[in-house]
């Protein structure tokens, strides 16, 4: 079994084992073992990747594996990885592992919950390693569908409605995406030997006229899950209703599929379309960046604050991708990673606070630093990371994006960049507002003194997410070098 296919097999085995679990204890132990294995594999993958590159393998994708799956349409099981994929997989595995820890005490239907969670993870892994567009689409759906169940069954508040809204919007996007993928398929070869393989399609120059129509279709298809303004509206209510671990996975990993897909499919296969359309989507993404941040200022529900902050941060990812140079692309990938860890950490912490106080309204909370110091201190750290403090991943990513975006000389890009940069102030405002209201100040209610301290599994989950943030933030060079290396083929396509 090759190293990448294991990422699909391992979760499937975990799910199969989970079917035999009888209670909460068994199911969480099985999921823990399963996700630990995935985590170990992901870490191993970094080293394997570095070793592979060190041997002088300069192929675009390494660890490739190919098998015919559906011959008449030339659908194949093609997998492969480059540096970006490797980091995305690491992100996913860490968030899944942390998610299992955070759901340690889940009450209803634990077995089914963990099964859905791991199925979702399978979809995510599969999406990242797919080189075949059809396979990619398949895994995309596999990742999205369990979300409906996870929110609809284990959620809170108006969960059915939120789940429905989320699923329908994402399905609508999938429909667009399918059109786009089929379009790519039918232009993948001049002589009728159509293929879904990304690397093969990249060798063909799709006519500019076709790219002009296909790019927005594929872009929007992916960008909806990446919370592109004005298609972000599934995200706040979806996050607010989802259970903690699901919010983490969703914001942390699933929303990254959007940016990754845009980059891997829309940008890579349709470079001319990207250049033609970039101005339009830059406007949308800059609006998203500033708008998300401004909308977050006024929210009172912690999860809403974080959801809008995600809109803003992921807007920055799309913005950076559309800036079409390698520095900003590097920044986009770093921002995806950084936001993945940060937002997962945020949602984990919000879940812990909610569990204790049974409210997410910042106006009702207060003085938490006194009563649950550990969780609160980490919340402050996560907040500082989110507002782009040096030493944490957010800073590295944002600065790379801004420097990259500034390399475009014309006035339009400059103005867009400067508007995007203002987000560092607005972010500070909404983060500090939440921190000030919720964590600082006098303790609001007497019963807050009875809050239990953070448990070992909560701490483990927190540290799992915090450590990568600090690693990216303090030693970004090796990560950005690996990413930069993997961006080269994209640059060549674009020029």
């Amino acid at each position: 079994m090759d190293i990448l296919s294991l990422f699909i097999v391992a979760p499937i085995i975990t799910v199969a084992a989970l079917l035999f679990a009888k209670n909460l204890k068994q199911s969480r132990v099985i999921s823990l073992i399963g996700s630990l294995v995935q985590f170990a594999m992901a870490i191993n993958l970094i080293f394997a990747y570095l070793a592979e590159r060190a041997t002088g393998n300069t192929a675009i994708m390494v660890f490739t594996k190919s098998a015919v799956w559906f011959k008449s349409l030339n659908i194949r099981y093609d997998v492969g990885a480059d540096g970006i994929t490797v980091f995305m997989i690491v992100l996913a595995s860490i968030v899944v592992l942390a998610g299992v820890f955070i759901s340690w005490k889940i009450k209803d239907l634990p077995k089914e919950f963990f099964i859905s969670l791991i199925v979702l993870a399978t979809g995510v892994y599969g999406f990242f390693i797919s080189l075949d567009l059809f396979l990619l689409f398949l895994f995309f759906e596999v990742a999205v569908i369990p979300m409906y169940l996870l929110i609809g069954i284990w959620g809170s508040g108006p969960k059915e409605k939120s789940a429905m809204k989320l699923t329908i919007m994402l399905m609508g996007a999938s429909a667009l995406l399918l059109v786009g993928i089929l379009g790519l398929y039918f232009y993948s070869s001049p002589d009728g030997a159509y293929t879904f393989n990304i690397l093969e399609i990249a060798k063909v120059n799709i006519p500019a006229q076709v790219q002009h129509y296909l790019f927005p279709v594929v872009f929007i298809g992916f960008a909806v899950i990446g919370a592109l303004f004005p298609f972000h509206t599934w995200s706040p209510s979806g996050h607010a209703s989802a259970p903690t671990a699901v919010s983490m996975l969703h914001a942390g990993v699933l929303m990254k599929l959007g940016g990754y897909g845009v980059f891997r499919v829309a940008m890579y296969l349709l470079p001319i379309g990207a250049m033609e359309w970039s101005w339009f989507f830059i406007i949308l993404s800059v609006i998203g960046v500033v708008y998300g941040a401004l909308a977050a200022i006024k929210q009172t529900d912690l999860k809403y604050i974080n959801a809008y902050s995600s809109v803003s941060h992921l807007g920055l990812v799309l913005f950076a991708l559309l800036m079409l140079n390698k520095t900003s692309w590097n920044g986009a990938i770093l921002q995806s990673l950084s936001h993945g860890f940060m937002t997962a950490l945020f949602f984990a912490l919000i879940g812990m606070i909610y569990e204790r106080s049974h409210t997410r309204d910042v106006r009702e909370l207060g003085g938490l630093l006194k009563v649950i110091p550990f969780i609160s201190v980490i919340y402050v750290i996560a907040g500082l990371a989110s507002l782009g403090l040096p030493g944490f991943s957010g800073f590295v990513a944002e600065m790379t994006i801004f420097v990259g975006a500034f390399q475009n000389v014309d006035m339009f890009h400059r103005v867009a960049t400067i508007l995007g940069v203002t987000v560092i102030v607005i972010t500070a405002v909404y983060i500090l507002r939440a921190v000030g209201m919720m964590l600082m100040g006098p303790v609001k209610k007497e019963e807050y003194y009875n809050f239990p301290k953070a448990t070992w599994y909560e701490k483990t989950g927190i540290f799992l997410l915090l450590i990568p943030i600090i690693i990216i933030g303090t030693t970004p060079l090796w990560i950005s070098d690996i990413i930069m290396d993997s961006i080269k083929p994209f640059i060549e396509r674009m020029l």
Partner: protein
Amino acid sequence: MNFSYTLFIPLIPLFVFLFLGILHTKLKPKLAGTIGVLGLSTSTLLSYYTAYKYFFEVGKVDGVYQTFIGAKTTWINFTELLHIDMGVLLDPISIMMLVVVSTISLMVHIYSLGYMKGEAGFNRYYAFLSLFTFSMYGLVIATNIFQMYIFWELVGVSSFLLIGYYYDKPSAVAAAKKAFIVTRFADLGFLIGILILSYYAGTFDFQILNNPQGAIISNGIGASFMGLSVITWALILMFVGGAGKSAMFPLHIWLPDAMEGPTPVSALIHAATMVVAGVYLVARMFPLYYFIDGGFVLQIVAYVGAFTSLFAAIIACTQNDIKRVLAFSTMSQIGYMMLALGVSGYDGHEGLGYMASMFHLFTHAMFKALLFLGAGSVIHAVHSNLMKDMGGLRKYMPITNITFFIAALSISGFPFTSGFFSKDEILSAAFENSKLIYFVGLFVAGLTAFYMFRIYFSIFWGKEKTYKHTPHESPLSMTIPLILLAILSIAPGYIHFSDFISADRGGFEAHLNYPLAITAVVTGLIGILVAYVFYKKENNIPEKVSKTFGAIYTWTYHKFYIDELYLFVTKKIIFNIVSASFAWFDKKVIDDSMIGIGDATINSSEKIKKLQSGKFQDYATWFILGAIALVLYFLYKN
């Protein structure tokens, strides 16, 4: 000479921070304090050693002070040209700053052992102090503009954490937030300035940027925007960043509120070190500021500095909280430094303003820290910040009294104190450049003397108040730093600063300009005299005077309502109008339109559903009508 050991100067506080931060619940306060002080002592010794080596042994080559890179490593690559390095840059001003930061920080560390004793978050406090010191070191030794920005943000956050030290006090939380957000807003300018500068210059590196013979300065950059070279814009924007950190008008509003933090913190961060970062930034980039567009931006720097120094000095005269008086005084003095930089030239004696600014930075750090620590000692004794609760304290607190008196003399520019010398250099630099600025400076000198002795007399003389607990002199850990700083408020005046620090690094001979010096001293003495008359004994002159000024007094007392203006803009406009309307727009327009699409689907399906009545006769009717229609269509098609 290998300066790589200088890497440990910032790293030691970093390790102390990490150690105390991670173990802060487990350590005994005494141990944490000791670790903090010991760690910083080591850094301080290293800084002093570096200063000695640099200034007296290896620094000067062919009469010009060289720049050394103690250590350097690439931190991240952006493009082929742009990459952030982390390193140690040693040149006269960075070493001088190392000495200032080390000295003040060490004094504050020692002082806090007594001042913060018994506080609940003692370990946390020391961890944050170490974090701040680390960041400040990183800022001053930055080898490139981006490294400086990184540490610039870090000092900002340490300041946030330390202002919000009493986090259960709403006013402290508000002040911390305000300080962070206002400076962050200014940093936005700084960041955009960096982006512009680095794009056109193709580097972040100070050595390349600042080289007077380098391509950027000698050739300039072709691109211009609205009549000014893009580099000029970049420098203006970077000055905005500096103005935010250094509390220049109109970004000064955070500094008075920052006094909510513990007093030693105010002494360290908000008087001596962090707030002068803006001055340091301009000094660091001085060749660019001076040569690009004929020093256009320096003009702005000079006028902003002069205005702020006047503005803040006027407000300081009316405040009743002693820490706030000191805060405004700090703003005023930093305005002085900016002003000096603004009027400075480059070559030899022309660069008097540059040197004077750095000199004043040095002396101001010492006496202002002393003033704050003295004020802290008083506050410690009477448990209040307000002047009305104090009076006649000289009997109870002799050491505090004498040291505070020395500091007050020094800031007032009394002869033979260090403040006298540095202020004189600034005034003569201003005199040579612009008479207007000179007279503003002179007037401010008089005001400074007045407000400083106003608080001095009110605290230590005047009518004795009734105290709940009899005030007593502070413990040794607090008085020793006071005494040391008192010495440092006088002694540095006799250092020939111009030998070590000058704009072109060559050094020059600076002399006292006697006519100007005498004028300044007389002005200062008048200020002191007025304060003596007003406040030495309890009387009603101040009230009368404030009544005569009436509206102006009220305006000044309310700091010209600038806070209220900001509050109006942020709370009313940004929060309630912009942000709320965005939130509303999102909920009502975007979200509802998406929901609307869903509802429309449901509604139309409700409509279509009626066709599916389940009555086969209906279906048959439709079928037959359809068939007939088709037949008719084909019949009459042609």
